[in-house]
């Protein structure tokens, strides 16, 4: 059984979803890469920010 940590799961999820978003939402290869990277950073960044928010609320 594959048992990733929560953050590893987020990384894998973001990588796959960003790949599909980048290819399907833009027309040219350059713009696809840029949009995919943008989505990846947003996925990971929002996860880190929300994690800190939940941590601070729980204290």
């Amino acid at each position: 059984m594959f048992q990733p940590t929560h953050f590893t799961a987020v990384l894998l999820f973001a990588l796959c979803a960003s790949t599909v978003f980048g290819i399907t939402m833009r027309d040219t290869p350059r713009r696809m890469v840029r949009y995919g990277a943008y989505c990846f950073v947003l996925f990971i960044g929002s996860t880190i920010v929300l994690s800190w928010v939940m941590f601070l609320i729980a204290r």
Partner: protein
Amino acid sequence: MSTAPNKPAATGKQAQQGFVYLPLIAGWLVPGAGHFLLGKWVRGTLLAAAIIAMFIMGLAMQGKLYTSAQDILSLLGMAGDLGNGLLYIVSRSMGWGAQPTQTTVADYGKVFIVVAGLLNIIAAVDAHNLRTGRKS
């Protein structure tokens, strides 16, 4: 006074011939196949790798495949799972993903499988748009 019939939105030789929904259906059944049919090998390979990897990781995390639509959440989950096309059908027939969700990781896996199906639908629609000429 007669008027000229409306021209289809799609232009180009490729959009004029063959069954226009073939890339959509092929892309739904096999991730990336719609792009392969249109000669978009790199895009198709990347899409197939991302979607199939996500589906396999979901199963490896012991994620559950939705098998019936007893309530609205199950119905939505099954709709997402069905987006995986043949991956879902083969996995159901092999008995994979039949165990109930008991761990947090298995819950992640369930989400991975549903999202893989939704991403596959997006990829299939993208292949259809390429076929009709809405996207280049």
